[in-house]
């Protein structure tokens, strides 16, 4: 425990050190990111080796924290360790990736300071066992990520994105206030340890407040608006960290609050399933309609948070209906998906960063054929893409499988119709999300890496530096390993799941057999695939291979710009779902009979949550506020009248009412 705190301090110190250095100091390239990576690696090893002792440790302040109530209490339990592990992995990989990413545009010397405070803030969020401590760490996390978002000053939209992000973060903090006050209202203590046994209607209010407070960070629909703005604006390794683990802190918060309240109400589960289905399906649909590579990934994070919510919802419903299998598998799937999503999403963001670094653009429809100049990046990106689609033998599959099995148990084995319906809804949502995600990521990978370059101007000449490739290889290897050997990840899951499901007597042999069997099948699959490949290879040795152009159906001059673009690829789907994802088309015509310039067509999917709902609310507030301007009219006489009226009103209030 003390090790963790000391390491956090070292992190902050190394960040502070970077503040004192000159902007282009050499140590930004190696020493400071290296130090962050080393500390996190050390911490990771410490946690993995000492897992048994780490998960039960707690730590009270060595000096009294002089606010009228707050105590400095730290603690680690299986739930927080489960979030700590991917966080450290991602920090290692993004701090290895960062220095070279900035080769062309060196960041301000504050970059690594905010990076380290972001990491330290996240560690402290996981460690804190006191509400005040938690809120402060939470704000440190939001604040430093906000500064990281706006740190890319070459982009004007980063200011806008940072603004939107920070607003939502702050609204979340306001909800956190209400949430923690309500939780502490029984005995006035802000220590987590005293928050037990909250029941009845109050627990429902607590749950809803937690959903709002943490949902704004987790970014499920309708709280997602900041994600697609902030992620493209931030530097890629920061997006990886933010999308990979920071938004999961919202999930952590919801799960943490769930451990305070019992018994679970079934409708919480239904609500989560509804929200999960909404953000899963809409998130991936929005992703499919986007053009910016990082915006696509951001919306896909919304989708994956939706999947996590579906799992959590099944877990809660399972507990509420007393079905341990459903509960255990639901929670386990949700948690595992947290880990998995953090791995493959950070991999994808790092890959997107590599593409942006080499091409200087994030516009998907301008790219194409990058696989030839950047083969290794392409392979790593493909790994992430397959994993995020939840396809077998990669890690995304294992977690989705657990949620599916939870639903199967719920809809088949349990007598309650409500549970069956919840399971069915979740299965249908997951299946739809799966199909849509496959569309989204074949589209992304196909447009960026395959085919011919669409604009030769931004075609990269070479592969990214090997350091960045190694940084991407860490999550990629873990994606494959977890996919193949999910059995070994199960011990990590049991602790938090027991805490969430509120019982420890669940028999884990069933889940173990699933993990084992799927490992076996994956081995079998690999073997047979290898066999087929071998046969093809040996038989193909004697064959003649001819290289020619792609079959062009008789058209003699196919140009790269005639390729199917990502927009055309998504068009049928977008047209089908035109209600939730409206496509806005902009056509700039020239009215001449013989137009001198070509017409320009541009289409984009607008997020009507942002442009419709939120903007309307803000506009109406603005109008209302503007209509009060007469109050400050500039007339001194009128101002004196206010004073007189105030006196009279106060006297009437106090003496005559």
């Amino acid at each position: 425990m003390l090790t963790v705190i000391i390491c956090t301090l070292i992190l902050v110190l190394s960040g502070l050190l970077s503040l004192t250095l000159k902007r282009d100091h050499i140590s930004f390239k190696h020493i400071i990111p290296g130090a962050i990576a080393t500390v996190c690696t050390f911490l990771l090893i410490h946690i993995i080796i000492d897992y048994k002792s780490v998960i039960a440790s707690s730590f009270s302040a060595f000096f009294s924290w002089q606010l009228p109530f707050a105590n400095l209490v730290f603690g680690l339990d299986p739930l927080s360790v489960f979030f700590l592990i991917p966080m450290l992995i991602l920090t290692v990989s993004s701090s290895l990736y960062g220095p070279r990413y900035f080769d062309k545009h060196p960041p301000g010397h504050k970059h690594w300071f905010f990076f380290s405070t972001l990491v330290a803030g996240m560690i402290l969020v996981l460690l804190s066992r006191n509400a005040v401590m938690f809120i402060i760490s939470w704000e440190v996390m939001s604040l430093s990520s906000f500064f990281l978002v706006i740190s890319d000053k070459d982009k004007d939209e980063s200011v806008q994105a940072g603004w939107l992000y920070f607003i939502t973060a702050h609204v979340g903090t306001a909800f956190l206030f209400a949430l923690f006050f309500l939780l502490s209202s029984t005995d006035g203590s802000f220590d987590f340890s005293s928050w037990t046994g909250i029941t009845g209607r109050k627990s429902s209010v607590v749950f809803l407040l937690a959903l709002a407070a943490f949902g704004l960070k987790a970014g499920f629909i309708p709280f997602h608006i900041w994600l697609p703005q902030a992620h493209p604006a931030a530097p890629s390794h920061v997006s990886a960290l933010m999308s990979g683990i920071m938004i999961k802190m919202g999930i952590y918060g919801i799960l943490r609050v769930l451990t305070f309240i019992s018994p679970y109400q079934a409708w919480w589960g239904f609500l989560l399933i509804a929200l999960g289905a909404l953000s899963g399906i809409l998130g991936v649909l929005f992703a499919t309609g986007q053009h910016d590579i990082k915006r696509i990934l951001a919306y896909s994070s919304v989708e994956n948070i939706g999947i996590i919510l579906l799992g959590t919802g099944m877990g809660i419903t399972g507990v509420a209906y007393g079905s341990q299998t459903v509960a255990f598998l639901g929670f386990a799937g949700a948690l595992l998906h947290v880990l998995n999503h953090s791995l493959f999403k950070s991999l994808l963001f790092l890959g997107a960063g590599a593409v942006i670094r080499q091409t200087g653009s994030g516009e998907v429809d301008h790219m194409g054929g990058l696989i030839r100049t950047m083969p290794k990046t392409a392979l790593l990106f493909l790994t992430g893409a397959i994993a995020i689609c939840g396809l077998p033998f990669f890690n995304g599959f294992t977690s989705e499988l657990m949620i599916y099995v939870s639903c199967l148990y719920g809809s088949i084995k349990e007598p309650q119709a409500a549970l069956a319906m919840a399971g069915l809804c979740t299965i249908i949502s997951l299946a739809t999300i799966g199909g849509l995600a496959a569309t989204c990521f074949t589209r992304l990978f196909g447009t960026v890496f395959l085919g011919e370059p669409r604009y030769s101007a931004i075609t990269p000449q070479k592969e990214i530096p090997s350091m960045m490739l190694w940084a991407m290889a860490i999550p990629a290897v873990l994606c494959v390993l977890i996919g193949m050997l999910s059995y070994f990840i199960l011990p990590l899951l049991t602790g938090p799941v027991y805490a969430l499901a509120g019982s420890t007597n669940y028999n884990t042999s069933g889940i173990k057999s699933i993990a084992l069997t799927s490992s076996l099948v994956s081995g079998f699959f690999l073997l047979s695939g290898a066999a087929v490949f071998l046969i093809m290879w040996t038989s193909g040795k004697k064959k003649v291979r001819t290289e020619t152009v792609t079959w062009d159906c008789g058209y003699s001059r196919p140009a790269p710009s005639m390729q199917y673009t990502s927009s055309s690829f998504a068009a049928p789907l977008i047209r089908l779902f035109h209600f939730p994802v409206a496509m806005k088309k902009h056509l700039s015509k020239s009215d001449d009979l013989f137009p001198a310039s070509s017409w320009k067509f541009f289409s984009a999917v607008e997020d009507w949550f942002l442009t419709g709902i939120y903007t309307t609310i803000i506009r109406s507030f603005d109008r209302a506020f503007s209509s009060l301007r007469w109050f400050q009219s500039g007339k001194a006489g009128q101002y004196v009248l206010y004073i007189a009226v105030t006196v009279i009103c106060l006297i009437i209030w106090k003496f005559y009412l």
Partner: protein
Amino acid sequence: MKSDLLAWVSLLIIVSNLYLLSSSRLASLIKGVAFQGILLGALSLLMAGHSASYHLIFLAILSIAVKGILIPFYLSKLVRGVKELRDANPVIGYSLSMFIGVVISCFAFYILQKAPFVHAFVSVFHGASAISTAGIGLFLIITSRNVIRQIIGFLVFENASFIFGLSIALYQPLFVEMGILLDTFAGVLIMVIAAKRILTVHQSISVRSLERLSK
């Protein structure tokens, strides 16, 4: 006898208030307020006789000197520099203002019967004159369209505080009393200086040129 006189002076103060409300010329406004200053001096002299306190006499002299002579003198000097129409020109017309002034004064008598603070005053007339003066002073400020009338309104409002303070003056040490007086005098003087500045910069004493800072 003395309380009778006190009541008469108080009544005269109320009448002077009404006069201020009705006067349309800046010059007559200044005259009115100078008259009121002298009335205040008389009031405090009467009070001095009432409770045999020497420093009330000092107060009376001071108030006659400053409120009756000094400030009106400066004000009329200021008015002489005004090029535009030297009219009071209030937001609310003179007759209606008069009517409202009468209502305020009646209300002051009424409220004194009801309110908890009646025993803070020497007499009902004394209290009513204070409240009515305060109300009418505020009314003058609120309805003014030019700076001079606002100053005069403030002066009237402050006269109310003087009348009010007289009843409590006995309980304060002298230096506090003097401080209060000097402070208010200084306040009004500074207002006059500021008004002069306004006149030189804007060439006008209308408050319309002072309404640009809004929202």
